[in-house]
């Protein structure tokens, strides 16, 4: 059930966020229990004499996960580019989950700023994971400027509304068969993660649904199982839907049956 990104083999198709857990210990235990191979992190202003950043970083390193820093909160391409450059030095990785907020209410990404930042960062040698909507044209533009991974939302970040536009997600998968597609946001239940994987998506990123659960450790395990189940189902080949019933039990030989 591993996932290949660049030259790295990732042990799980579940990507987990590191925010909003009740405690650092609960965060660490949940990440480990989920079996995730990639964990998302961020960077924030640090006051003089504070040391929280170093402590957090040590915990993340102890999980053995690959680290995917984000540019959460950035509104412009310029802010996102500088944040990505700082993240590269801080986390010693060229991976960047590129976010450019276009609307404060929905946290919908600004596609113009996103595209501009992606173009610059791809040219600077970053592996860009752009957080985008399900819009096919923007997705294609991101691919054209060098992105081999896309992270469309299922619904707004932290909303737990699940998949709002399955048609569009399915279309992205069909139209961009060679791109690594990761649903990034809005997943609230393990069953929704399984559904995303059944659509042929390469991975799912989950944060709030695990971190804010009554038991984040068990929820991490539940999402791991769901992602594996969905992927296995996709690889096994789902049967087509039909309008009419088709008996699964053989009809010939049915008692009292007359053709």
């Amino acid at each position, binding site marked *: 059930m591993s996932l290949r990104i660049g030259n790295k083999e990732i042990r799980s198709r579940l990507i987990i966020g590191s925010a909003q857990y009740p405690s650092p210990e609960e965060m660490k235990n949940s990440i480990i229990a989920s079996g995730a191979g990639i964990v998302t*992190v961020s960077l924030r202003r640090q006051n003089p004499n504070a040391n929280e950043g170093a402590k957090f970083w040590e915990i993340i390193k102890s999980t053995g996960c690959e680290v995917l820093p984000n540019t959460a909160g950035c509104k412009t391409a310029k802010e996102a580019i500088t944040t990505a450059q700082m993240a590269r030095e*801080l986390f010693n990785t060229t991976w960047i989950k590129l976010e450019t907020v276009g609307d404060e209410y929905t946290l919908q990404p600004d596609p113009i700023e996103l595209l501009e930042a992606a173009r610059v960062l791809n040219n600077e040698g970053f592996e860009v994971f752009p957080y985008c909507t399900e819009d096919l044209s923007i997705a294609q533009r991101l691919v054209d400027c060098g992105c081999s991974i896309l992270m469309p939302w299922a619904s707004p970040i932290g909303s737990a509304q699940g998949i709002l536009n399955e048609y569009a997600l399915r279309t992205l998968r069909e139209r961009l068969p060679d791109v690594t597609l990761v649903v990034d946001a809005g997943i609230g239940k393990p069953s929704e993660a399984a559904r995303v994987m059944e659509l042929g998506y390469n991975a799912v990123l989950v944060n709030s649904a695990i971190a804010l659960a009554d038991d984040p450790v068990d929820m991490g395990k539940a999402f791991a199982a769901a992602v594996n189940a969905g992927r296995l189902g996709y690889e096994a080949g789902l049967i087509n839907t039909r309008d009419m019933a088709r008996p699964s039990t053989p009809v010939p030989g049915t008692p009292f049956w007359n053709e």
Partner: protein
Amino acid sequence: MKIKLNGEEREAVTGQKLADFLTELNYDTGHCATAINGEFITRSLYSETTIQENDELEIVAPMQGG
């Protein structure tokens, strides 16, 4: 001279190098990254970067994120 550090005004010594400024404030430079006026400053340039009046410094560290 006045500068801004993470959005807050504070005083800095005129002509001070970024490396000295960070050391004076006890920043662990191995666990933070810096931008001045929106431009990333890599660690190797701290000792040759002079802070100017009204500069806006951003100093960030690893943090939880989704």
